[in-house]
């Protein structure tokens, strides 16, 4: 039970995890040097941490905990540069983006930790296909009850986060026609989806213990939900974002999440509603498929709206909270991008159209990741 004791953290603090692609420069396919890279990085003193992920072609960059997403930008740039420095020695390049455009999943090799070996043993090819790259945003919660509340109300905004971060238009060498194809790889897992409609932390624990009693799960990590409480950190974790092409955009997304959570926790404009889960699959699909141009059903107003417009309207509402948290400028920057119709997925497609091959797309994504801004 101890792992489920909700370790309350300072409310509305923010931190991110970014899964990154390791790329080999001779053909821009995925490399498998996570182990060597981590061994080198282990000798450095860095804020946060860099960790292994399910296959040897990825590493996960964890930020430290921040009171405002504004200070996240500098830290992520520092860590990014340190990773790049060590990667250069190994002739490995790093890229953001939710998927590698053309790698063959069968070529991937599992990072040999006990947990990952268990995942492969259990899930077979799903584990190797899980070589997709996401950003997770953690928001600090004062209690488990707040975490459950936020998980329910933030589900309304899942399409926002998908559309804002979408950066996986290519998969297995093909244009998927989706803006984010990554989530499809996640949805294949039997425990993907969303938290059940529980009222509070006590009820959640009851649910968890039943699932554990059935032998379906062993720990919270077994749930691959879009939004999931993380009692160990005392946070709620938004897991639907693709890793963006720059660390700056990762910080912008964190700023939006932070201000959104602040608005909901402090003003409580919405109460959890089952209707959210009725429309969730539709909204999620629209966001994956069409991005900002998709339409979503607002479960509270019971009407359809364009995802991009809904984002802009929401940003206007949360502006005072963003300003108070010191990340108003970041949310503004994100809004300007939405107005201009920018997205990482569109950028990747434009590079493909201009250069003609997916290897070129990966190379340019690497170059973009290396640059500040």
């Amino acid at each position: 039970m101890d792992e489920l004791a909700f370790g309350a953290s300072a409310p509305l603090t923010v931190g991110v995890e970014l899964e990154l692609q390791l790329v080999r420069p001779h053909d821009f396919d995925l490399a498998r040097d996570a182990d060597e890279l981590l061994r080198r990085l282990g000798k450095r003193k860095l804020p946060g941490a860099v960790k292994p992920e399910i296959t040897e072609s990825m590493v996960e960059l964890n930020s430290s905990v921040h009171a405002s997403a504004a200070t996240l930008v500098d830290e992520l740039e520092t860590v990014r540069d340190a990773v790049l420095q060590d990667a250069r020695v190994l002739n490995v390049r790093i890229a953001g983006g939710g998927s590698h455009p053309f790698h063959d999943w069968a070529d991937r090799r599992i990072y040999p930790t006990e947990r990952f070996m268990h995942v492969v043993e259990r899930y077979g090819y799903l584990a190797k296909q899980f070589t997709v790259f996401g950003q997770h945003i953690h928001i600090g919660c004062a209690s488990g009850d707040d975490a459950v509340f936020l998980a329910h109300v933030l589900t309304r905004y899942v399409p926002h986060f998908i559309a804002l971060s979408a950066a996986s238009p290519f998969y297995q060498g093909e244009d998927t026609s989706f803006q984010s194809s990554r989530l499809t790889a996640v949805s294949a897992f039997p425990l993907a989806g969303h938290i059940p409609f529980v009222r509070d932390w006590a009820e959640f624990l009851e649910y968890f213990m039943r699932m554990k009693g059935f032998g379906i799960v062993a720990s919270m990590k077994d749930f691959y939900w879009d939004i999931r409480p993380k009692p160990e950190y005392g946070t709620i974790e938004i897991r639907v974002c693709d890793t963006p092409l720059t660390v700056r955009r990762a910080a912008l997304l964190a700023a939006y999440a932070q201000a959104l959570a602040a608005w909901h926790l402090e003003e409580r404009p919405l109460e959890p509603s089952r209707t959210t889960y009725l429309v969730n699959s539709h909204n999620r699909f629209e966001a994956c498929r069409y991005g900002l141009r998709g339409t979503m059903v607002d479960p509270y107003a019971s009407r359809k709206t364009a995802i991009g417009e809904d984002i802009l309207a929401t940003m206007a509402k949360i502006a005072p909270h963003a300003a108070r948290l010191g990340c108003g400028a970041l949310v503004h920057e994100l809004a300007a991008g939405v107005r201009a119709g920018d997205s990482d997925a569109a950028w990747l497609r434009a590079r493909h159209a201009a250069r003609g091959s997916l290897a070129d797309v990966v190379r340019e994504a690497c170059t973009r990741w290396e640059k500040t801004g």
Partner: protein
Amino acid sequence: MATEYLPRLPLAFSQAALFGALVIVGLAAGEALRRYASLPRITGYVLAGAALGPHALGLISDDMLFDLRPLVDLSVGLIVFELGFRLDFKWLRANRWLLVTAIGEALFSFLGIFAVMVAFDFRPVLAAMAAAVGTATSPGTVLLVAHDLRAQGQITERLLLFTAVNSAFAYVLLTLLLPFLHFEHQASWQQAFFHPLYLLWGSLVAGWLACILMLRLAAWLGKSEERQFILMVGMVVVTVGIAHALKLSVSLALLTLGMLARNLDRGYAVLPVHFGHGSQLFFVILFVLVGASLSFSAFSAAAAAPVAALILVRFLGKGVALLGFGPLSGIRPGGAGLLALGLLPLSGSAVVMVRDTTLLYPAFGRELAAVVLSAVVILELIGPLATQFALRRAREAHPDG
């Protein structure tokens, strides 16, 4: 009754039939060794060649070997081109210790072999040429074993890089040693001066010109893997032919072509093409022919000591440099030793090198061959095993590879 429609005995087989038969026999032998003894396929190709060759069953005669030389050149050309294409100047710039390690590894093994050969009373020219040839790791063996095991990772990448650097080192050094060879044979100073100059610059310029043409054509053809694959094979074949016609070094010209195609391609016109199945065909035929030309008769009790010493100092030279500089270039602990093992193969390209450089003085060629080729026989057999062991031990071989 007229029987003109029947063939006459003995049957006259075409080159094509011979080629096909050798490929199939080599392939089967490689697969058998792989399956039943877990040995590298390449060892099977070599053994098949040795068994069929003039020194054993005699199904491949010396004449046939001579006729099939263009195939050997072509195969070596494709291999060194692919190797050159893997040599990334950017990596060497970003990681200076890597360059130091690569050059140190080549230099130490050269000096080691040279010293040992002189100690065994070989003439300095002969000792130096043998040392230069001995410095190079066999590009074909390393590429083939890495490909066969589907190896991937730092040790594999460095193995290929060091092989490219020590091959380039060997080719250039052999050329620079030519004046001494000429002096030994009382050639004119013009010949001693201009021959290496012609050979070195000629090969580099040929490779460079071919590269420029290839980059232009690749840009014009566009990003189609199929078309670019054909372009690359075509360019390699024609460059081999031109280098041959101009009496240049095929290996140096092709290594230059590969290296420059990778590193001069500012506009990223060339796609990263893997030769894949196409090059496998050439790998098989090359190593069958290498096996057939192995001269076991080169062995003699008298040669055993210098050859054993050559193999040992070559390994030690590589090992010392790798252990000394390797860690500074970011090789993981234990990786340097594995790399020294992986770099052990010496083979087909050495045969070609010996032949190419001593065309003018066949007597000297035979002398050099006697020293080098016995080492080749031994390393041809244990080299692939060493490379396979190193890549497996480094955990870079694919579990199913």
